[in-house]
């Protein structure tokens, strides 16, 4: 066995001396996929390591106590942590900042004390300026983007609430900022001693009070956090340790990494078709050698080993190059991914993702090499006597099929390891299998149809179409590979079209254009007056909002219930109403009478009821501003359709319970774009603490983020399309010999170059048309399922995208065919026919 392998390797080396025809396509396909998977793996590992190392900085301390809308007393806080801890307080809220010429921007205000940050470092521009110095004497530090929007520069003054601040610096890095989430406005830092003067925080206005602690050495942080969570399960504050921050970030990172790994895997699988094509092409050129070796006494097993070793040698080169690029890429793209990833990328050497990528590369090569290799080993030496050597068309034997099965299983296994989201990996495996099957069947069907058609057209059409399905044609491979790339592109383009349509509808259609939060009870009358004064403002809706946290479900503390639902992650807006809100659809229970004055009743959404496993009559407990309030579920209603633009709350109380708590109101107003500034001016002037949220602006911001995401997704689709193109290039290269010969013979028979060009053009246009047709249908069907079933959006036909994809497919195949055959056309027939 070993001797056999050594001999096979010796013979393989001799063959490799003359190079590997088609190795460029082979290598390119492999490098593309391996590099993509390795890069994503390395970035992911880097993010996770960064998260691990920076977790205290990201949390802001070893322990964070977070309270919404209500500051906590010092004695309470002192009792929570062992002596020796350092404390830092941060208040986070939204406010309106005013700049030059009446320019206004809603900002995310971060009010810090001298201890901030307990961990990590704030980096400012100008460099070297300390935060404490920048914030001294009414100073403010802002995010760079705010300068242009307020038309101000460092040294200028801005107004926040009722106080003026001097802009001292731009913040470059904020150690406890987790990106990747939409924030209402750009960041502004001010000092706590200036907070009162600004009068931003009023009773009931939305603000978060963070108390961060750097614990004394020797304190068991995890035990402390766990203990506090147990003891204060029903308290009005939330206890956070470093372990709580990771799931939030890793969820975002994991999903992104899984998605990107899958796209890398898709391109590797599509590239696999190119690998198979390159191997097949290479072996076609080696048929003579193989037959000769058999004449000289080589068994078919030896032939298999000789060529498998050559393929593996080349694969290892490809994998190695792919790994080097994959390892280097994160250094290059860390700038591009900024703002998409929640934390900065830590670049380093991570062997595990590289090993996974290498495994994918080798297994893909093997999976796609076995079939052509199994056919090659069956080549009959008899061809040597007949000057007619054809590859065997037999099905590979059972051992080969078994090996193929093992490779595919290995790939599936690696997909499960490499893609941390197991469900996503399973879906990918199923979709990949289904897509390969569907594409192959569709390609075969369409080719069958062209075969029938071929008999009807003129000579050129007949010749071109015949080229698509003659024996040894690569049309099916090209259609499957290019089709897969185009399917991904169609899918993404159509989904994107639908999302844009929905976004346009939501943000420029019927939805209220302006929301206001933090309207105090005593400001309600003024607010209503302001809106009434503006003729363009219509459909004013008002909703009392009180922040509260679900602390108990039936008799179990919420944080020990095992329920994982977004409503439990932090405090939520609660509200109350005597009457049933317009559009409510009751699933179970009955609404309370409008004059109801008994114990607290509650209306919840059906998905909350399902997640909590509660029914009518069950009790939920909330902590509202430090007080625990119990309420009985009286109504289960259908999930609120937020797209209708109604002000509503997931937890709606019966009257008589929440009114007593200090709370603010939220308002929604429909106003057209031209009248919006006037309304904003009026509110800002008379009610400076009220924060407006313009849906036009938020829509713009969401569009901005979608642009970034779209860019990333397009890059991904591009990679799969490139893999398809490589396969096309491989097929064109493989057909070169045939084109040369065909052109020469046709020239001898009197064909002009333009005639030949037409034949080749029709052949490649046909290829592109079939690939686009199949991909268009599959992509559209896939998009329909995603849009209507997964995203629950209305379906919009994206004919523009379809035309674009058709154009892309046709121009690509035509360009590839043209480039591949142009040189052929110029060759004199004699030189080709002399050396058949």
């Amino acid at each position, binding site marked *: 066995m070993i*001797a056999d392998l050594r*001999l096979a390797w*010796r*013979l393989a080396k*001799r*063959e*490799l*001396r*003359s190079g590997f025809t088609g190795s460029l396509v082979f290598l390119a396909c492999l490098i593309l996929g391996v590099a993509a998977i390795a890069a994503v793996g390395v970035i992911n590992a880097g993010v996770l390591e960064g998260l691990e190392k920076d977790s205290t900085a990201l949390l802001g301390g070893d322990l964070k106590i977070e309270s919404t809308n209500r500051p906590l007393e010092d004695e309470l806080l002192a009792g929570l942590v062992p002596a020796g801890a350092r404390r830092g307080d941060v208040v986070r809220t939204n406010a309106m900042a005013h700049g030059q010429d009446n320019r206004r921007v809603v900002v995310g205000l971060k009010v810090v004390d001298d201890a901030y940050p307990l961990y990590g470092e704030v980096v400012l521009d100008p460099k070297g300026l300390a935060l404490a110095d920048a914030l001294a004497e009414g100073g403010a530090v802002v995010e760079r983007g705010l300068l242009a929007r307020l038309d101000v520069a460092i040294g200028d003054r801005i107004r926040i609430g009722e106080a003026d601040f001097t802009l001292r610096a731009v913040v470059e890095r904020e150690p406890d900022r987790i990106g990747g989430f939409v924030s209402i406005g750009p960041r502004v830092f001010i000092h706590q001693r200036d907070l009162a003067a600004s009068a931003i925080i009023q009773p009931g206005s939305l603000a978060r009070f963070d108390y961060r602690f750097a614990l004394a050495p020797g304190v068991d942080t995890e035990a402390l956090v766990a203990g506090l969570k147990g003891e204060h399960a029903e308290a009005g504050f939330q206890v956070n340790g470093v372990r709580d921050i990771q799931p939030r970030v890793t969820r975002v990172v994991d999903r992104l990494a899984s998605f990107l790994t899958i796209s890398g895997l898709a391109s590797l699988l599509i590239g696999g078709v190119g690998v198979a094509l390159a191997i097949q092409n290479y072996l076609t050129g080696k048929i*003579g*050698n193989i037959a*000769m*070796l*058999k*004449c*000289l*006494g*080589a*068994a*078919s*097993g*030896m032939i298999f080993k000789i060529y498998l070793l050559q393929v593996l040698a080349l694969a290892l080169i490809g994998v190695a190059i792919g790994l080097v690029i994959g390892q280097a890429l994160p250094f290059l793209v860390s700038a591009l991914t900024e703002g998409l990833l929640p934390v900065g990328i830590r670049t380093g050497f991570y062997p595990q993702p590289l090993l996974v990528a290498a495994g994918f590369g080798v297994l893909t090569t093997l999976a796609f090499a076995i079939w052509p290799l199994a056919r090659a080993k069956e080549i*009959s*030496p*008899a061809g*040597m*006597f*007949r000057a007619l050597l054809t590859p065997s068309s037999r099905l590979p034997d059972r051992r080969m099929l078994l090996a193929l099965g093992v490779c595919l299983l290995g790939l599936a296994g690696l997909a499960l390891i490499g893609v941390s989201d197991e469900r996503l990996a399973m879906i990918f495996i199923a979709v990949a299998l289904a897509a390969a099957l569907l594409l192959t069947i569709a390609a075969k069907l369409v080719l069958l149809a062209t075969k029938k058609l071929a008999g009807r057209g003129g000579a050129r059409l007949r010749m071109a179409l015949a080229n698509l399905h003659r024996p040894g044609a690569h049309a099916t491979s090209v259609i499957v590979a290019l089709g897969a790339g185009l399917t991904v592109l169609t899918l993404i383009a159509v989904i994107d079209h639908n999302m844009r349509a929905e976004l346009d509808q939501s943000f420029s259609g019927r939805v209220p254009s302006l929301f206001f939060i933090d309207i105090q009870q005593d400001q309600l009358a003024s607010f209503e007056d302001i809106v009434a004064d503006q003729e363009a403002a219509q459909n004013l809706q008002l909703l009392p909002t009180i922040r509260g946290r679900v602390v108990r479900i039936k008799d179990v503390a919420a944080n020990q219930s095992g329920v994982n639902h977004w409503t439990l992650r932090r405090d939520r807006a609660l509200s109350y109403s005597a009457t049933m809100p317009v559009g409510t659809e009751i699933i179970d229970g009955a609404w309370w009478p409008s004059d109801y004055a008994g114990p607290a009743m509650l209306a919840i959404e059906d998905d909350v009821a399902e997640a909590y496993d509660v029914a009518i009559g069950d009790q939920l407990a909330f902590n509202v501003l430090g007080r625990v309030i119990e309420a009985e579920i009286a109504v289960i209603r259908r999930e609120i359709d937020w797209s209708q633009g109604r002000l509503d709350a997931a937890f709606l109380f019966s009257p008589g319970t929440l009114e007593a708590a200090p709370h603010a109101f939220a308002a929604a107003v429909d106003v057209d774009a031209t009248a919006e500034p006037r309304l904003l001016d009026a509110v800002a002037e008379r009610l400076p603490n009220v924060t407006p949220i313009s849906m036009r602006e938020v829509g713009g911001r969401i569009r901005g983020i979608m642009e970034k995401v779209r860019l990333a997704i397009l890059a991904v689709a591009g990679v799969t399309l490139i893999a398809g193109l490589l396969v096309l290039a491989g097929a064109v290269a493989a057909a070169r010999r045939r084109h040369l010969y065909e052109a020469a013979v046709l020239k001898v028979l009197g064909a002009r170059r333009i005639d030949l060009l037409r034949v080749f053009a029709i052949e490649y246009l046909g290829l592109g048309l079939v690939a686009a047709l199949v991909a268009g249908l599959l992509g559209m069907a896939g998009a329909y399922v995603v849009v209507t079933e997964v995203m629950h959006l209305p379906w919009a036909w994206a004919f523009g995208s379809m035309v674009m994809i058709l154009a892309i497919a046709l121009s690509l195949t035509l360009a590839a065919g043209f480039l591949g055959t142009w040189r052929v056309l110029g060759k004199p027939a004699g030189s080709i026919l002399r050396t058949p």
Partner: protein
Amino acid sequence: MTVEPVSPPMIALENVHLTLTSAAGPVKILRGVDLAVQAGRSVSVIGPSGSGKSTLMAVAGGIERPSHGEVAIDGQDLNALNEDELASFRGREIGILFQSFHLIPTMTALENVAVPLELAGEDGAFSRAAEGLDAVHLAERADHYPGQLSGGEQQRVALARALANRPKLLLADEPTGNLDQVTGQEIVELMFGIQRERVTTLLLITHEPALAERCDHQYRMADGRLQKIAPESKPERDADLQPPLRSDEVA
């Protein structure tokens, strides 16, 4: 004058038929061929293109399986061997020389000659290959690739390769067909010289009557059937080229 053979014939074909299926339907290539060649003898087959000469050789070399009939080489029934057993039998017992040489272009002359020895797991493959090249007077071109050799030189390398394992049977398929007369003559002299020296059985396919007549027995292939034409009808003018013949039994 028939001499009873003491050992089985080197080549024994009995009622061999071969039909290949093509898109246009079945094509009968061999139609009941019988041939027996004693060890150490040389036999030539002439005939028009497409008459089945090369197929006859492929069957004798265990490369093509007959549709019907018996094939035994040196007493070994080839029908009883599977593909891989056939390959290793061929590697040990049979050398094949082709009209277009079929050297492996990526291997040097020496490596080409060594391949059958390596495949058969023989020790000292390269030293024996060097001896083989020496025997065809090409020792100094051992490190050249086929592309760097003339046609005659390539065929000499092919001859050395065919004989590397000292096979009992040499199959030569128009070995001079691609060579000019002088070069072809050199190859012929080398081939017959080594054949006589090593007492190798030779089955030679050729278009050249003069070359055919140098063999102990001559056959004509026509339409898939084999017919003996010499020694009985051996032309006078070439008699001086041939050693005196014993007549062998030919069925």
